[in-house]
Each structure stands twice: as C-alpha cells, then as structure tokens.
C-alpha cells in the first residue's frame, strides 16, 4: 500500500526564498538515501512557499483565484513523499526516522493513497445508490444543524 507523507509548512518554510539550512538539507538527503536503499520511496517533492502559489476557490459555477501567500502556515504543506510500504505502522516507523530540520514545532501527516482494491466494491450499481443515500442523509443532517 502507498502512503503520502505530507510535510506541513512552518513560519520558516513560508518565508520568502526559504530554503532549509545546509545541514538540514544534508540530513534530509541521508534520510532520502536510506528510504531509496530500502526500496520504499516512490517519489518526493519539496514546495516553494505559498507566496509563489495560488488557490482557486469553487462556489457553484464560480471560480475565484486567490494569490498566495496564505496565512496559517501549519495548514499549508511544504513537501511530500510517496512511500510504498506494507502497513500504516511501517510508514510511521519510517517517518519517525526522519531528521527534524525545523527549528520550532512542526508536523508530518501520513495519509493512505487510494488504490484499485479500495474501489472493488464501489463500482456496483447498488454500491453507488447506497453511497448516494448516505450522502443525501448527511447533507440533510448538516442542513438541519
């Protein structure tokens, strides 16, 4: 199974032209090397600060573009990895081995990637109908609140 390891942004990583310190990069490269040598790293990327990005806001038929930067650094992401492992626990074990390149508090989130077997039941007509009912109920409940 695959997991996306999401590295959350920090005030430091959101700074204009932000790059981790050279020692941080070196430590991270060692970690990436280890993941590669273990055959579990499928891909990874680091992201520029949100000041170089944008958001597209959807509302019905409208799309509104909002340019970065965005507030609330801890809700933004600074990078990600895709790991191919056999359990959530294995993904957690790998993430725990990562060096901490952030001076302050920071967080890494681990999320499972959908794969074909996750959909194997979802394609049946009944499954889709059932899903629609559940969603309608949820929407109903939300509207009543």
């Amino acid at each position, binding site marked *: 199974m695959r997991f996306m390891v999401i590295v959350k942004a920090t005030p430091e990583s959101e700074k204009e032209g932000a790059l981790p310190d050279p020692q941080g990069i070196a430590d991270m490269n*060692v*970690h990436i*090397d*280890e993941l*590669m*040598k*273990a*055959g*579990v790293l*499928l*891909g990874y990327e680091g992201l520029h600060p949100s000041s170089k990005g944008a958001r597209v806001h959807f509302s019905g038929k409208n799309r509104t573009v909002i340019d970065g930067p965005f507030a609330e650094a801890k809700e933004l992401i600074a990078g990600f990895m*895709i790991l*191919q*492992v*056999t*359990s959530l*626990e*294995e993904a*957690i*074990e*790998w993430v725990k081995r990562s060096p901490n390149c952030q001076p302050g508090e920071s967080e890494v989130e681990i999320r499972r990637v959908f*794969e*074909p*077997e996750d*959909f*194997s039941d979802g*394609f049946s007509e009944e499954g889709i109908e059932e899903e629609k009912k559940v969603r309608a109920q949820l929407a109903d409940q939300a509207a009543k609140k």
Partner: protein
Amino acid sequence: MPAADPHRTQALHRTQALHRTIDAVWRIESARVIAGLTRLTRDVGLAEDLAQEALVAALEQWPQSGIPDNPAAWLTATAKRRAIDLFRRNAVARRKHEELGRELEAFEQTSPDLDSPLDNTIGDDLLRLVFIACHPSLPTESRAALTLRLLGGLTTDEIARAFLTPEPTIAQRIVRAKRTLADKHIPFEVPRGSELAARLSSVLEVIYLIFNEGYSATTGDDLMRPTLCEDALRLGRILAELTPSEPEVHGLVALMEIQASRTRARVTSTGELVLLFDQNRSQWDQLLIHRGLTAIERAHKINAIRGPYLLQAEIAACHARARTPSETDWPRIVILYNELARLIPSPVIELNRAVAVSMAHGPHAGLTLIDALASEPSLARYHLLPSVRADLLYKLGRHPEARTEFERAAALTRNTRERDLLRIRAAACETDSTTWSQNF
C-alpha cells in the same frame, strides 16, 4: 453473552497495535539484522534463527518496556548476546570454536553504529545476503522462498500464502536451503570477476520469478497477487541501490516498474483479465512508468550494452509511451525483439517476436513465424502459442481454425480466469464469422 470488559478490550487493542508496530520494525530491520549476524556467525541459517529469537524476545518484552528508541540496535544486540552464549557453550564442548569465540568477543566490543543509516558495511552485508539467498546450489523455488524470508522480511506463512503452497512445504524448503548452504560451506561474500555476472543473473532470475508469480499467477483463481509484485519490486529497488553500476539490475527494475504500472488496468472490478490493447491506459500508473523510464536511462548511462532485462524493459517502455494502442512503435519493438532473440534464443521470445512482427507487418507475416514454432516441443503445452495463433487466424478471417486454437489454448491454461476469456473468444468465432477483426 456477557458484555466485553472494556479494559480488557482496550488492553487487547493496545497489544495488537504494538504487534503491528513490531511487525513494521521487523520489515524494515530484519534484513540488516540478519546480514550483520551472518557476517558474525558465518552461518546464514543460524543468523536467521538468532534474529527470530530476538524477534520473539521483542514480542515478549516490548509490551512491558515499550519500543526502544533504536529497535534495530536492540534486535541486533539481543541476537548477538544469544550468539555469544551459544558459541561459548559450543567452545567448551569443542575447542575448535575458540577462535570464533574470540572473534565474537571482539565483535561485541565494536558495536556497529546502527543509528547511522545504511553505511557501506551494512550495504555490503546486505548484498552478500542477497547472493547467498540466491545461490545457484539451491533449487529456484527455495531461492525465492529464502530471499523473501531473509531480505523481504516475510514470515513463512506469508510466503506460503503468496505462493499458494502449504506452510510446512515452505518451511521445509527454507530449512533444507539453509542446511545446503551450511553443508556446502557457501561463503558469505560478493562474487568477483567472471563469477559475478552469472551469480547476478541468478539473483535477477529469482526476483523476476517472485514478480511473475504475483503478476501472472500461474495457479489459482486470482490473476494477480499484487503484494508479491510489490515485494519483488522492493527487492529490485534495494538491489539497484546496492549495485548501481549494473545495467541489467536497472533493466529488471524498469521492466517490473512498467509492468506493475498496468496492474489496475489489467483486471476488471469483477476479476477478469484485460489484454494490453483493451486496457484503459488512463489507469496506467504514471508514477511507476516514470520510475521505469528513469531506470532505463540509468542503465543507458552505464554503457551501451543491452542485456535481456533491459531489452524487455525497453519493449515494455514502447507500450508505456503509446497513449493509444495505434500509437505503438511496432517497428522499434520488432528491432528490440530481434536483438533479444539473438541474445537469448528461445521459443517463447520467438512467439513474442511473431506477435510484434504481425503488428508491424500484418497478421500473415506473424503467422508464418508462428507456424515455424508449431513443432517446437517446449511449446507443446504452452497455452499462449495456440492463443496467439488463434488471434492471428481470427484477424485473417479464418474463424473456424481460430476457434479450434482458442479452445486448445483454453484447455492448456491453468488459470481459470484466463480460461474463461479464451472460451469467450472461441465462442465469438462462431457468432461473428463474417466480420473481420478490428484493426489495432
């Protein structure tokens, strides 16, 4: 029914969660632990037993003590202590172990820094472990089981389920393999010079066998066992980092990455096989294709020689690059197959070459090559020969002959799903005998 005690349920959940974490630690660390212990004991079987004992100790102790900060170091230290005890006892019984005992004590003093990631020593030990697990003195199926066990961190039960083989059979295979390695004093080393090429191809063969067992399950109801493919890919990727200057290793990795990229398009949600040209290419995994193409580039950067795995990877890449079947570069595939057939002449490759020729130059040209294989004894029971022949006959509008061949192929395949598909095609020969097949 009495209500479940919530405290007991909670404790049970905690224990289960901890066991899953220990399993994960084992998956990550076992190969390195076993490799280090093999260097120490010079006996891969003993090393594995000691590592297993350390795992049992972890399962007993960690629920109370908590998981140590460096679980690999804990496992190695525990196994090493047991090794030293064992050798001391043996040394008393048999003086000839004295030297080994001293060696062990020296080893005990120099504790390897397991905090640091895979350093060269551990990398070398892992590579030695790969070569010993895939030693040619072992039967192929034992090499596969031992490799999954020692390098993949799989339990005997997991291997048995993956190969649909009874667990005692797998256990016996592993025990026998370990005994053979000990009896024949197979050294724990990376082969050098002219021996390296032959030994490396034995390793690649084992990894690809594991992959194929998962990719085109030869027995049983499932067409694929994807976790086995993932295990093989993981082994291949590990090997590629251990031997970065071997083009064929990258070739094998590329081949597996590209084949695995089609996993989700290859089988329908109800479990039927979908042939390459009928697959929804938007379902191909672009990440794996990208990895496959990168691995091919890595191989090309080493030298211009193309070995069998690299050639097959390049053929797979031709398909991966084509957004639709009609965009496939068939002339290039024919060239690659010609090269492959020269390198490793085999009836199966000749059969594939015939398919490529039929796609590049028409079904008639392909059929001529296929018919030359008709008397090939090694293909007498190979279902793909009549299956391919049936397809070409069908394309040439010779439907009654095509039907006979589809039925012959259905009778020969051991995979039930594939048999169904071939029977459907046989039946189709009757219903639309007037229409010519669609052009690809």
